[in-house]
């Protein structure tokens, strides 16, 4: 983990309120595990005060370039979206523990299920898995076609499906509808998205093997402040994991959603 002023290489809006931001820096050399995130300071004043956690979406080690995708939501991401080529961004990372890559062998199949802004970390994951000879099926859920992004990029790596709540692209409904309708089979499930989606996945295939990446409001992002804890299934009431430093990726079933 490092703190570095990385340089903005490019920034563009690739879907409604969705920005693709590429930055360059030495810290990128450490970003080898998909599912990890970075913690970004979007200003040098105290407004906003806290850093913003953003997932690693893609990495090009050769050019030391990190790609992030984020949705412009509140103050922080709005400021981030104004950063221009050549500007510097204060980045802390990589943080947390990513998706395990050694659970599948060549020829086995991974199902990657992403919802909205949970999609980005799955892209780097898909690339890594593919390079290991693992079949990747991706299911991406969005509100509508206008909110969707990166589906072609996932399609380049394997079967890829899209669901939209309003039916304007792909299957109308949720990612779970796609999995059911297309009768998808897989050896391991990787997912990142809103908690309701993760819960629905857990209900759909209670015995599913795999990993979920969680989101929680963060203070420090490095495990020091206890802001981002979750209860542990079957643990004591005082047992916990920290999303920022124990996660954000956890084996399915380990953490109380």
């Amino acid at each position, binding site marked *: 983990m490092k703190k570095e002023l990385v340089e903005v290489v490019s920034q563009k809006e690739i879907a409604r309120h969705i920005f693709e931001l590429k930055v360059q820096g030495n810290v990128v050399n450490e970003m080898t595990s998909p599912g990890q995130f970075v913690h970004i300071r979007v200003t040098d004043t*105290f407004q906003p*005060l806290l850093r913003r956690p953003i997932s690693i979406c893609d990495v090009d080690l050769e050019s030391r370039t990190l790609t992030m995708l984020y949705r412009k939501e509140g103050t922080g991401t709005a400021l981030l979206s104004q950063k221009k080529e050549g500007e510097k961004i204060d980045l802390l990372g990589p943080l947390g523990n990513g998706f395990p890559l050694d659970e599948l062998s060549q020829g086995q199949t991974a199902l990657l299920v992403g919802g909205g802004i949970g999609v980005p970390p799955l892209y780097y994951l898909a690339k890594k898995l593919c390079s290991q000879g693992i079949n990747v099926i991706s299911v991406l859920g969005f509100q509508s076609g206008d909110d969707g992004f990166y589906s072609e990029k996932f399609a380049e790596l394997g079967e890829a499906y899209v669901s939209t709540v309003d039916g304007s692209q792909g299957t109308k409904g949720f990612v779970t509808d796609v999995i059911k309708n297309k009768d998808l089979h897989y050896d391991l499930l990787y997912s990142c998205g809103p908690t309701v989606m993760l819960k629905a996945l857990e209900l759909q295939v209670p015995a599913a093997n795999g990993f979920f990446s969680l989101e929680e*409001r963060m203070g420090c992002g*490095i*495990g020091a*402040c*206890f802001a981002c*804890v979750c209860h542990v299934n079957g643990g004591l009431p005082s047992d*916990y994991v920290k999303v920022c430093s124990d996660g954000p990726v956890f084996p399915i079933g380990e953490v109380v959603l």
Partner: protein
Amino acid sequence: MKRLEVSLPGLKMKNPIMPASGCFGFGREYAGLYDLSVLGAAAIKAATVEARFGNPTPRVAETHSGMLNAIGLQNPGVDQIMEKELPFLKSYDLPIVANIAGSTEEDYCEVAEKMSSHPQVSVLELNISCPNVKEGGIQFGTDARTAAALTKRVKAVSSKPVYVKLSPNVANIAEMAIAVEEAGADGISMINTLLGMRIDLKTRKPILANKTGGLSGPAIKPVAIRMIHEVSQAVSIPIIGMGGVSCAEDVIEFMLAGASAVAVGTANFVDPFICPDIISQLPELLEKMNVSHIRELIGGSWRECEVPSLSR
């Protein structure tokens, strides 16, 4: 580096800077970032008798130049802390300020007795000001008599100096300080967080699951400065000042107000290297201010003293 040394009861510090309790965990995470031995001291997360999960999440919310937290004193319990957490810090040259909390006087005493007996603990910080728990915490911190009674009992069982951490959520902070001084406190830590709330326009409910939380960060700095200025003139025990410190200049401002040492809380989240950075910037700042030793600044805003005309 002698010019940064400060000495408080039980605390011989290389420099006046320590991370504030709750913003530094038990040191492990920051130890991965820098050598903890550069710190003047470190205040560790509050310890209670039993292990606590704390409040439901979300536990943090952002505010203008500040943040709210409602962690709720999550910690693994005093025994675990002594067995599992403190040993990790042993390899550092780092005085430890052990923050202690509880729901009853008995709880506090139990934790105080245990913690103060630990050879690595330099002093206790009696947290009577946590706004995020239903019992204990702030209720001890808003009534002078209750605070004094608790201080007396904790002092009786503690083998190390006791600093009482005051809550800013009171009408008369000097009265609180005087009460705990009379009860035997060796020092005062101030300020803890201001009670605050934010409401989410979408859900129309408070953002924090606990509804209210403690406001910290630069937003509260003027309140901290005011209270330290007042208390440092009302008592003769030293003050560990905190509340929004985020740069070397802030440290000077706190010391001029009357603090003898300064804790950095929320700013660690903004920049995890803030403590070592401040420490390394202080000598140059003293140079610029024409101050030969940082001690000279303590209470400088109210003590009659010469201000070198160069720095006017």
